[in-house]
């Protein structure tokens, strides 16, 4: 039912909008909110309350309170009073078993009292302990508001955007608008943010500054960061100056029955009448501590509501107020013994400046006893408050903390979000929660969806009275973001999982590789048969894409000295075109990364790192040189270069086919580096052998990667060349007992105990980690990284991370374990006490609930003399 058309109404009666509520069609108009359209259709009960499931109706009509939260198009907790109506919306009630009119859970309101005192979940449902799962199941199903579809798909996209402006104005009311215009006239770049369009007093686009609406400032963070929720975009504002014009929030009065449907704040009345031409009720009583309630009288009269009585609490002294209702809707208001029949109660407890954002920015908040409100003061630099939020809220009577009703029946709500009554607050105080911060956490007043907008001030009044002190002594609780509710999707932003793929990646996909994550890289686990792939490398020829290796050029007159300081071994004496293995360590002596270093000329080194360590090593190099200022440049060429490794007994024959370079063992020895054309592609060839067989690692410009890959597969056809993935590579390197950083080492491992004492050159003057390694040497080894093997045949493989048991206690751990098809036994690596770190020592490995025997090995399982590598 609408009132006759009136000037200024926001609805366009020529443009009807159809949506559904609980599956049934409802009609509204363009310009309606979901709430106003439902109200027009006769709906008065909008929600059931959080704990007691009491019927609740429109209270503030400004998107602050929890009384109209519904599920809209699958999104829970939408405040429908402020949600613009769109055709086809699907709206339904939330937090009810049944319907809003008949909610089974409402039984908690009738009989739940003794079971649901404040903090009840800490104490009533804890015994007997056994029954907790039962309680928990019940509580979990009863708790919470709304439902999220667990299997739901993403329906929108969220993004964030950084903005830098001269002036950010928060709030588009009169004061905010003035401030924006003034700043704009001064030539400042201004953005005005408003919850609107409801509150906007100017036309969008008609001003010389940018307006974001509807958009909400979530908070003011450190450094003046203001995140603004604009629906699907989170703007991160930084402004030279922030003008806060958030206005003031109308405060409720505390009396029994103050949550009944039909009890409203004056703003709600004004909006229903003026914006949407609705009659808020038939017979109204007004209780007002300031002008606002009395202004509502005029609106009510325009709407044809009979105003039975209007109490101006500034002039009239009222002791007792109580509302009574039927089926949750107000029917009578009793004021000092006079029973007044009504279906609408307008209550106005004054206006509290919405100072939260200012407080977050660092302002102090002071109680103004004369006006009964908290006002912000001592604003930080660059933050300004204008209008009502600065305390410009007119005069008001300070209402009583609570009005008791005659007979004292009926609940008096301090906090409608969390269903906290005055009795709960009094009880908390009686239990000793005298500090406002503690009482807040215990009672959860101000912690609900309204974030204290409607309950902060009244609750402090109540604390003050019950503690027999004043509001200034009680003080306020800390204002924290978010000041308005914000969706998790907005905070999460766009799902973004950085992924790197090599230039040869699509070839792996074409070959049917099983792809896995390694750090940020996507790499082939195998091409279907890891064991056969490993065998191909031993028997003939394998090809693996190792483009993911970190690759750096270290160049300059000091390059060799630079590496000498960083690595425990020596590079100044590395000959040009030769390669040396390096283990990078910290000053604490811990292993950080490893890789090979090739000297390309006197001043140029080509450094490779592990695939996941590339960024870290680059940072590390740069960090040290930020102090040393050595004459050396470091260039990361990881992404610029592709690399493949051809390995197997027939690797040399293959190389002969693809390059003119003399690849004979005399001309191109193990650990030699050569630059040559490979299949016509300018390449750097490193003769190294991570997988234990004769191998050439070919590095070339990334775009040539696929071509190089194709050529090798083609030229190697009659050698039965086979691409192999990471898993076969892991088997092969384990056979050779080559360590994997991060797999066989952790953040405590040092190269000495990791069984690589040969790499530490103590005779060098200094290097990063020298002193710590000297200390390890002095104190003696505690544990050591060793190889182990188990029995013959097809034994079960112990789990990586599994225990080594010594005298019934954990004494070591397995870091790698595989079944080796080549050696036909289980092999692995493990950390064992130094006393067991000798060949043939027997270890007990925990697996399958029992203990299995293993034997320590110090030399590589495969080709211990390295003849395969060197020949």
């Amino acid at each position, binding site marked *: 039912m609408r009132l006759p058309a009136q000037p200024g109404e926001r609805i366009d009666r020529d443009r009807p909008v159809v949506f559904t509520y609980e599956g049934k069609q409802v009609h509204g108009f363009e310009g309606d909110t979901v709430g106003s359209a439902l109200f027009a259709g006769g709906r008065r009960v909008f929600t059931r309350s959080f704990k007691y499931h009491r019927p609740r109706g429109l209270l503030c009509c400004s998107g602050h309170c929890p009384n109209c939260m519904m599920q809209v198009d699958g999104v829970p907790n939408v405040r429908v009073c402020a949600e613009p109506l769109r055709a086809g919306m699907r709206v339904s009630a939330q937090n009810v078993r049944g319907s809003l009119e008949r909610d089974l859970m409402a039984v908690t309101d009738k009989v739940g009292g003794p079971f649901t005192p404040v903090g009840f979940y800490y104490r009533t449902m804890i015994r007997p302990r056994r029954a907790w799962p039962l309680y928990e199941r019940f509580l979990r199903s009863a708790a919470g508001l709304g439902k999220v579809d667990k299997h739901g798909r993403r329906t929108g996209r969220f993004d964030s955007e*950084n903005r830098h402006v001269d002036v950010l104005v928060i709030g588009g009311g009169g004061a905010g608008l003035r401030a924006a215009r003034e700043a704009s006239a001064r030539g400042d770049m201004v953005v005005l943010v408003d919850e609107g369009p409801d509150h906007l007093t100017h036309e969008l686009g008609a001003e010389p500054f940018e307006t974001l609406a509807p958009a909400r400032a979530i908070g003011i*963070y*450190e*450094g003046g*960061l203001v995140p603004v929720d604009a629906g699907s975009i989170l703007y*991160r504002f*930084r402004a030279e100056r922030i003008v806060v014009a958030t206005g003031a929030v109308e405060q409720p009065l505390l009396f029994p029955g103050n949550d009944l449907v039909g009890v409203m704040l004056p703003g709600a009345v004004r909006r229903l009448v003026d914006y949407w031409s609705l009659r808020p009720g038939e017979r109204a009583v007004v209780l007002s501590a300031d002008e606002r309630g009395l202004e509502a009288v005029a609106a009510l009269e325009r709407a044809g509501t009979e105003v039975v009585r209007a109490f101006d609490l500034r002039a009239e002294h009222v002791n007792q107020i109580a509302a009574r209702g039927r089926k949750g809707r107000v029917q009578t208001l009793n004021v000092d013994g006079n029973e007044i029949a009504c279906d609408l109660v307008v209550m106005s407890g004054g206006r509290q400046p919405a100072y939260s954002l200012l407080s977050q920015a660092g302002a102090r908040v002071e109680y103004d006893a004369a006006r009964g409100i908290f006002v912000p003061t001592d604003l930080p630099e660059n933050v300004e408050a204008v209008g009502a939020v600065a305390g410009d809220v007119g005069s008001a009577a300070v209402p009583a903390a609570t009005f008791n009703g005659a007979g004292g029946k009926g609940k008096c709500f301090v906090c409608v979000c969390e269903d906290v009554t005055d009795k709960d607050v009094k009880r908390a105080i009686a239990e000793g929660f005298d500090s406002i911060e503690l009482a807040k956490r215990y009672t959860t007043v101000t912690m609900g969806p309204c974030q204290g907008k409607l309950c902060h001030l009244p609750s402090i009044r109540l604390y003050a009275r019950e503690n027999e002190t004043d509001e200034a002594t009680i003080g306020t609780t800390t204002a924290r973001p978010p000041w308005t509710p914000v969706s998790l999707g907005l905070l999460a932003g766009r799902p973004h999982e950085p992924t790197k793929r090599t230039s040869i990646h699509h070839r792996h996909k074409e070959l049917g590789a099983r792809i896995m994550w390694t750090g940020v890289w996507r790499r082939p686990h195998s091409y279907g048969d890891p064991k056969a792939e490993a065998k191909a490398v031993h028997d003939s020829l394998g090809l693996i894409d190792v483009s993911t290796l970190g690759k750096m050029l270290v160049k300059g007159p000091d390059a060799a000295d630079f590496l000498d*300081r960083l690595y425990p071994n020596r590079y100044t004496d590395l000959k040009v075109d030769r390669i040396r293995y390096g283990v990078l360590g*910290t*000053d*604490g002596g*811990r292993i*950080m990364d490893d890789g090979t270093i090739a000297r390309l000329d006197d001043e140029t080194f080509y450094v490779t790192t592990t695939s996941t360590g590339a960024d870290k090593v*680059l*940072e*590390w190099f*740069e*960090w*040290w040189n*930020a*102090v*040393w*200022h050595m004459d050396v440049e470091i260039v990361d060429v990881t992404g610029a270069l592709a690399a493949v490794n051809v390995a197997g007994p027939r690797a040399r024959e293959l190389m002969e086919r693809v390059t003119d370079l003399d690849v004979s063992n005399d001309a191109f020895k193990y650990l030699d580096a050569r630059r040559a054309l490979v299949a016509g592609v300018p390449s750097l060839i490193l003769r190294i052998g991570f997988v234990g067989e004769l191998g050439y690692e070919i590095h070339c410009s990334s775009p040539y990667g696929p071509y190089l890959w194709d050529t090798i597969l083609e030229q190697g056809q009659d050698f039965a060349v086979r691409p192999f993935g990471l898993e076969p590579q892991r088997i092969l390197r384990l056979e050779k007992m080559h360590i994997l950083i991060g797999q066989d080492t952790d*953040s405590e491992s040092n190269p000495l105990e990791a069984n690589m004492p040969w790499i530490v050159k103590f005779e060098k*003057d*200094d*290097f*990063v980690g020298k*002193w*710590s390694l000297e*200390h390890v040497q002095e104190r003696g080894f505690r544990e050591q990284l060793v190889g182990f093997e188990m029995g013959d045949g097809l034994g079960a493989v112990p789990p990586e991370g599994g225990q080594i048991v010594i005298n019934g206690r954990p004494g070591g751990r397995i870091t790698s374990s595989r079944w080796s098809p080549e050696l036909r036994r289980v092999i692995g690596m493990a950390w064992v006490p130094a006393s067991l770190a000798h060949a043939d020592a027997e270890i007990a490995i925990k697996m399958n609930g029992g203990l299995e025997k293993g034997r320590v090995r110090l030399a590589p399982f495969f080709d211990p003399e390295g003849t395969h590598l060197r020949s």
Partner: protein
Amino acid sequence: MTFLLPCPNCGARDVNEFAYQGEVTKRPKESPSFRELTSYLYFRENVAGVQREWWYHRLGCGLWFQAERDTRTNEVLLTELVEPRREGAAGPEAPAIPDTPAV
């Protein structure tokens, strides 16, 4: 932390672009005692006040620099590059040398 940090190269940027690498420590000179070594490796001043510290512009230009920041307020008093070591100084001894974040 949401404050702005002035990169000596790029100017003021959101602190989230940077990696914080702890207070500046002093690397001992040649052959420290065990106590000196462990103090250097594991002990930090952890001041409530102005601290000199390392930052790395990880999501920016990749520059390492030092800042003086009040740890209580996150007010950044200055940022600057580390001065080159004095002429003639030998070996890796330097006025201040970082240690790994994962010692």
